[in-house]
């Protein structure tokens, strides 16, 4: 229901706007233009005051969180690929283009806990295949995923990702998904203080 309501605010924006090209008389045109302007400004004001989403009208809650709590243990999902010798490797951040790692991390936070074992296996295999494809492309010197058309000029992700340090010569045969735990203050002094727990592992066919 809420999505229908949000869609209707957008459709009202388009509907009001589409009236304008068909109004020729100056006075009537000014009235409709004023109505359109008032609607756009009022809707923007509403989403900002109510702090609600009506995209493409947005309250832009960028970095608005309070991070002051000290000593809090943070956690995130991280991915590692495994080669035939069992060694772990970074995965190219663009391997899962058009999605960036943050979006896949999000699925492991939201979708993974509720997915069946078969669904988890299916997703894991798909991600592994894409990671292996990216490895082969990188080894052959090509541009990966989102950089395929524009190369290094491609728009980056909103969140900075660390490029994979190197790619193995042989194929990737496994994917490991870890949950990392760390305390920011401790991490700065001792990067080795990160604790990792294996969340999921899958092997290629």
């Amino acid at each position, binding site marked *: 229901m809420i999505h229908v309501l949000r869609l209707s605010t957008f459709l009202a924006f388009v509907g009001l706007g589409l009236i304008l090209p068909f109004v020729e008389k100056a006075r009537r045109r000014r009235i409709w233009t004023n109505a359109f302007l008032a609607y756009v400004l009022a809707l923007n004001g509403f989403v900002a005051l109510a702090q609600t989403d009506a995209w493409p009208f947005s309250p832009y809650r960028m970095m*608005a969180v309070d991070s002051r709590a000290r000593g809090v243990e943070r956690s995130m999902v991280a991915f590692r690929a495994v080669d035939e010798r069992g060694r772990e490797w970074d995965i190219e951040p663009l391997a899962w283009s058009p999605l960036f790692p943050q*979006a896949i991390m*999000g699925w492991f936070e939201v*979708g993974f806990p509720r997915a069946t074992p078969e669904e988890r296996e299916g997703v894991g295999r798909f991600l592994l295949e894409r990671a292996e494809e990216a490895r082969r492309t990188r080894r052959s010197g090509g541009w990966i995923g989102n950089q*395929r058309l524009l190369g290094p000029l491609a728009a980056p992700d*909103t969140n900075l990702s660390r490029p994979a340090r190197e790619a193995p010569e042989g194929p990737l045969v496994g994917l490991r998904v870890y949950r990392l735990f*760390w305390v920011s203050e401790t991490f700065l002094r001792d990067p080795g203080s990160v604790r990792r727990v294996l969340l999921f592992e899958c092997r290629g066919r």
Partner: protein
Amino acid sequence: LTAGLRGAWEQLFFRSAAPLGPIGARTLLCANALWIVLSRPDLADLPGWPPELWARVPPGLRCRYFILPVGTAIEQVAYGALCLALVAGLLGLVPRLSCFVAASLLYHFAPFEEILTTSTGPYLGGLTLPVLGLFILSFARTPALGSEPSPEHRWPLALVQMLLAFRYLFAGVAKLTLTGPGWMSVENVEATALLLMTYETRPPWGHWLVDHPALALAAGVGTVALELSFIGAVFSRRAAWVVMPAALALDLLAFQTLGVAFLNAPLLLLLLDWDGIDAWWRARRGREPRPAVSGSRVL
């Protein structure tokens, strides 16, 4: 008061303006959107990804963005049409239609990047302002380069500038509403930088904010001050000249210190003095400057 507000409204949205403003806005919006869209060439393939990944996306959310079970071939055709419409808009070919088609398809494709995990809209992905701006330009009359000044050239540009300013203003309001003035404190800015210097990524200048409390305080206060005052650039040419470089610097610093990229930074050029550029261009071509174009000072 009512007369004063009406006068300000008229001056902001309906004063006579040169045609270069909406043409410049269309060029910037199309170029920015095209850059982002060409940087996501596999976007149309996403609906073909394993259904397990789509399983938690509510049907209502899919309908909201017109993500229908039509197959990836149709999505790829739509993606191609989006690129063509943006190129046409950039070149000024059938501009109203191309802007409308581009905006409609951007509305459909923009959420793809986040829809698998979030339902709050892709407001960080860089396509929010192009969606709204291109729709607005498709509703307004299309000016011809060199045509006479008109109020019809003013309101679309002013509205798009206003929407650009909202991105900053609302971000400042959200910080003060959700966290309060403490958002600007040294403790909060330090802790935010520290949090983003995680195991997987490390913004190159993040440690500056952690190691230098004065810098952290300046970043916190400066960010909120700029975000809240950005709206002034829509009303005052002088304010625009201060705000444009300051906002660009803020966006670059956010990337270097917090690892957050704002892909709409090129759209700060929307705040250029388009009437002044038009007058300069006419003078160079040996034409009389247009006396009808008034200054951009409103308040």
